[in-house]
């Protein structure tokens, strides 16, 4: 922060010394005014150039410091996950990733033997893929009906849909928890247990009003002539949807898919409330439960960091390869997951 302040104050002082800022116009003026002035002006512009460069350096310094603070937890997490416990106790200021040669990854192997994280990974993958797939179908169909078809009550329905977005999710969760418990889906042991758990974890979140809205807006941008032309050719609605609308709206669909998958990966509250059988824990809750140590036990922080790193890696990969889509979706929605 200080760097920026410095830069600002130096710029503040500037105008007292000399008023013009454009070097080009200055030399032009100077030529008409004589040689002495020109030399003075040159001095001034030189001074200004120095200030400008200092300002730029200040900005870059500020950004670098902030960027370092922002990524520091990640760096520390990875560095610590590669340490032995005794090494961690000896020096936890050591930020160099590989001091003294390559490290062994025994913490990562230990995560899979000490905890059930492997199983939770698979659980999350199943729930994430299935719920994203079903949710996409529902979203596409709804968005198509709302954007292309004309029917009675359409606008009223859409307004009602948007109105539900104002209500905070906690209000739904209370009754949904009760509904799920009343339906017996919290009974997750025995033969049909996995199916109950699956229904509990997927069904309540299949319809996302915001994604319907997002996709509807995207579909509306596709010219209606395409639809009419397809109708003239005798194409059915579903075929038109599949062959024309979906390819054209693909970027939005990818955004929705990624955000939905990330939501499944990061969800904590609902699984925590409703998953009664530990075998069906999702990754986030599994991670938290695995390391909520009892009072007298010392936490094995390098092991913990290895588990956290494992949970974060898929998110990093998604971030690296699909950043464009995430940022597009987020800047329009402002919601997480």
């Amino acid at each position, binding site marked *: *922060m200080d760097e920026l302040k410095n830069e600002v104050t130096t710029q503040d002082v500037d105008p007292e010394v000399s008023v013009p800022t454009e070097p080009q116009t200055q030399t032009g003026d100077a030529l008409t005014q004589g040689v002495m002035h020109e030399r003075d002006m040159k001095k001034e512009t030189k001074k200004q150039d120095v200030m400008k460069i200092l300002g730029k350096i200040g900005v*870059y310094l500020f950004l670098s410091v902030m960027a370092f603070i922002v990524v520091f937890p990640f760096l520390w997490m990875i560095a610590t996950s590669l340490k032995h416990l005794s090494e961690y106790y000896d020096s936890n200021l050591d930020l160099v990733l590989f001091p003294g040669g390559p490290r062994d990854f025994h913490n990562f192997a230990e995560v899979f033997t000490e905890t059930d994280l492997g199983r939770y990974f698979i659980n999350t993958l199943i729930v994430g893929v299935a719920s994203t797939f079903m949710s996409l179908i529902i979203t596409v169909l709804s968005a198509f009906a709302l954007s292309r078809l004309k029917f009675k009550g359409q606008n009223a329905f859409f307004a009602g849909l948007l109105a539900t977005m104002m*209500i*905070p999710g*906690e209000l*739904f969760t209370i009754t949904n928890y009760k509904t799920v418990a009343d339906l017996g889906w919290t009974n997750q042991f025995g033969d049909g247990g996995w199916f109950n758990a699956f229904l509990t974890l997927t069904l309540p979140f299949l319809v996302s009003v915001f994604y319907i809205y997002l996709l509807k807006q995207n579909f509306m941008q596709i010219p209606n002539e395409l639809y009419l032309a397809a109708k003239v050719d005798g194409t059915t609605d579903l075929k038109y949807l599949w062959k024309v609308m979906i390819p054209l709206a693909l970027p939005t669909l990818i955004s929705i898919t990624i955000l939905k998958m990330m939501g499944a*990966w*990061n969800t904590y*509250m609902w699984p925590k409330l409703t998953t009664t059988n530990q075998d069906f824990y999702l990754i986030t809750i599994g991670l938290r439960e695995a390391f909520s140590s009892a009072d007298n036990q010392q936490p094995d922080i390098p092991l913990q960091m290895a588990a956290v790193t494992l949970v*974060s890696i898929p998110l990093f990969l998604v971030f690296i390869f699909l950043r464009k889509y995430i940022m597009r979706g987020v800047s329009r929605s402002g919601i997480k997951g």
Partner: protein
Amino acid sequence: MDKVLTFLNTVFVQGFWKTFCVKWVWQTFCVKWVWQTFCVKWVYQTFCKDLVGKKLRFNSWKGWIYLLPAIILLLIFTVYPIFNTVMMAFTNNYDSLESIGGTSFEFGIDNFITVISSGDTFRTAILNTMLLCVVTVPLSTMLALLIAVALNSIKPLQKFFQTIFFLPYVTNSIAIGMVFAALFDVVGDFSKPYLVESWGFINTLLGKIGVQPVNWLDGIGVFGDATYWPKFAVLVIYIVWNALPFKILILLGGLQSVNKQYYEAAKIDSTPKWRVFTRITVPLLSPMIAYVVITGFIGGFKEYTSIIGIFGDSMADGQLYTMVGFIYDALPDAFYGEASAAALILFAIIFAVTMVNLYVSKKKTHY
């Protein structure tokens, strides 16, 4: 407080509610609606349809079929919960009635009274939530604004920095909460320094500049005492860190869409940079700032997972309880009525704060 609530209860709920409201609502909305949909439609379809011809007919059923899966799920998991939650909140003694399968419901605000008078738990939850909002929202917004302006002023490496600043967004808040906890954690018994295995990263770092180690996470106490503020500081740092990427993204997007002519005009007048910032950048960015502040407040009132991530399920033994924590903790014990009442209180607070925000931003924003 109790007197007011009892008064409200007698005036509005018991007498007035049943006789007037229900009857009036039924007569104005439902009767009219039933009449219109059934009778008018039937008359129309039987007598007028052929006269009007094909022009006015549209395939009404088709759209609804496409919407059917969404509608079924919405009815079960969105529409029904809205009414049911309100109903549970306004039913006296709902939780015990539910457990014995009772059916005789009585409207009332007993649940709200129970929640408000439940003492320290609720008080801690409200105070924590408010304090978190008031501290983290301005802090993160200002920091994000500084970073966004700095980012906007550079050309080379802009994309690189943008990517780095967006990185915390794509994280698991529980997992990274655990990283923050580990950064501050003192392994061992803080009160017996010879038994401490590791002072933790932050304490070691502070030790280098001569600061005594602080027991950041493990102190046992209640809201507002000496053990509270270190925990609160850790939480604020984490929440601000976590909130930055979204705010930077929105603010930078706003900055990039500002018309460059304003800046060129300022340059010709050789306006000092600070004035450019306060007189041009901030006013033109004010809609984005308002948006970021409003969503920040809404998110702040729902703060929950970050606390679980750092302090575990007990939320530091209830010391860092929040409103949402209060609601969710009531559910496994089947205190639905109280949870609903608390959720409605939370909704009311969020609504009120958002309204105030909108009012202020309407006065202050420049469009």
